[in-house]
């Protein structure tokens, strides 16, 4: 990594470096994130606020900088979440697809190795994720889902903090160029 830590915006896409992961990492990490989301809160209720699948999708998207790969990964993870939830198939899928696409798009322009950027992106995409989910549920299913702004902001902050730590751990799984 030869670019400066003080720069946030990249001058061109070539300036950013594409991270590579092994295939099993891309397969196993999202799976573990989903398992964590459905299993751990059984024992630790307070951890139910964590949206690890979202953070994982976002991480791979911003790090790999591949829009198609990111949206497909988001779609798969989202559909897996849908299949484990009461929602009809497609709600989480659409949201995570959009998150993956936009995160990959943003990752091309930003220096996503900086902690602050990761924190801000995690915070923002968590909000985006919740807002899109609320819109889709209301628009497609006609359900009156409440959107608590204050609570959502706090959870977004918590997820962003956890996301920064998680991203730091996932950085260890990158292939060395």
């Amino acid at each position, binding site marked *: 990594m030869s670019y400066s830590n003080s720069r946030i915006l990249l001058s061109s896409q070539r300036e950013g470096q594409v991270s590579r992961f092994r295939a099993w990492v891309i397969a196993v990490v999202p799976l573990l994130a989903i398992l964590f989301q459905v299993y751990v809160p059984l024992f630790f209720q307070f951890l139910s606020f964590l949206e690890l699948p979202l953070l994982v999708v976002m991480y791979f998207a911003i790090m790999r900088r591949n*829009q*198609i790969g990111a*949206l*497909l990964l988001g*779609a798969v993870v*989202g*559909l897996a979440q849908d299949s484990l939830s009461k929602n*009809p*198939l*497609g*709600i989480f*899928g*659409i949201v995570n*697809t*959009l998150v993956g*696409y936009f995160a990959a798009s943003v990752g091309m322009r930003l220096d996503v190795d900086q902690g602050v950027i990761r924190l801000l992106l995690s915070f923002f995409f968590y909000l985006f994720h919740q807002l899109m989910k609320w819109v*889709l549920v209301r628009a*497609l*299913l*006609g359900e009156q889902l409440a959107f608590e702004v204050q609570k959502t902001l706090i959870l977004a902050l918590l997820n962003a903090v956890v996301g920064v730590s998680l991203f730091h751990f996932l950085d260890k799984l990158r292939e060395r160029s």
Partner: protein
Amino acid sequence: MEGFLNRYRSITVLLLVIFAQLILVAVGAKTKQDVRLIRVWSITAVSPVARFLEGARGGGIGFLRRYVMLHDAENENRRLRDENGKLKLDNIFLKNELSRADRAKALELFQTKTASKAVAATIIMMGAGSNSKEVFVDRGTTAGIMRGMAVVTPDGIVGIVRAAYPTASEVLLITDPDFAAGVISQKTQARGTLKGEGTTICRVDYVPTEDKVEVGDWLFTSGDDRVFPSGFPVGIVKSVRASQPFQEITVEPVGLKRGLEDVLILTEAVHQDIPTTPTGNQPIYIAPPPPLSGAPLTEVPSGSAGTEADKLRSIYKSVGESQSFTYGGDPGGRTPDFTKMPVGTNGQVTGATKPAPPPAPGASPTLGTPGQASPNPATPPVSTNPQPPTVRRSNQSAGAPGPGGPPHQ
């Protein structure tokens, strides 16, 4: 195309994936009415297109039919005109049938209410000649019709049977110059002879100048002619002119007012009273009385119902019953003491405006039975009309007072 897809590959894939997942949501989700979203979306998406296509198709075909393909219009117009004419004829026929049914009903009602026996007949043809005042009816001697019988309708007299044949009869109408009938004024009882003039108006002869007859007076048959029983409406006085020694009076006959189709031929004439109230052309409908059971507040005492004669009859009946007297029993037996009449608070006999004189001593206070006439034709029979007031009023309106009229003179 390939360059376009390469350039926008990622956004295309995004849209495809989003669309695919939308389909998934639509297939999996249901609305509150338990209908899958995919069905709702499909119908919502397709129906406007279908409506537009149908509108365009209908508009196009309608335009073609209305403005381009007009070759059938003339034939269709002719066919519709013919059909319209046929429907008009049908309408006239049905109206005539309805009118005939109404007349038949009125005739039947009149026949049941009048005391005279009558045979209903239908006009089948007119007498020959343009000014003919004769008609032929479909009843003849086989139906009991005889020469000289009176022909009437519920509105009034129509004519007289001039000749009776086995299957038909010739009727001389009231407007024929050869027709004559005895009439009497309702108001002043002035008597005269009605004669036809060959027009729609008749004249009345032999009314002395000193007898008072006014325009608008009703004339009834007097029974003097021995053809028409008394009490049948004849007509309304249209003009009166003083002359010597008799007045010149013209009358508009009422029997022919509504045209002639069905008539009654009186086979057994019974004289009737001349009605004292103005005669209407239409019978008046009077609703049946309300049920008395369970409604004591609305119960009307029997003595206060009906005419004065009815009230007197009920009083005499109650006096006789209170003294254990049986009406219609031994004529030479005991008579009730009518001096013990029930007296009201104002000193009058209860139920009557005037105290009625008791019958002559020794005479049986016969109350009369329906259809019973006086044995002596020279003596006016006691009015023993058994019909309720509503029936009598209806008969009067139809020109048929109840039975028990003045004697044949």
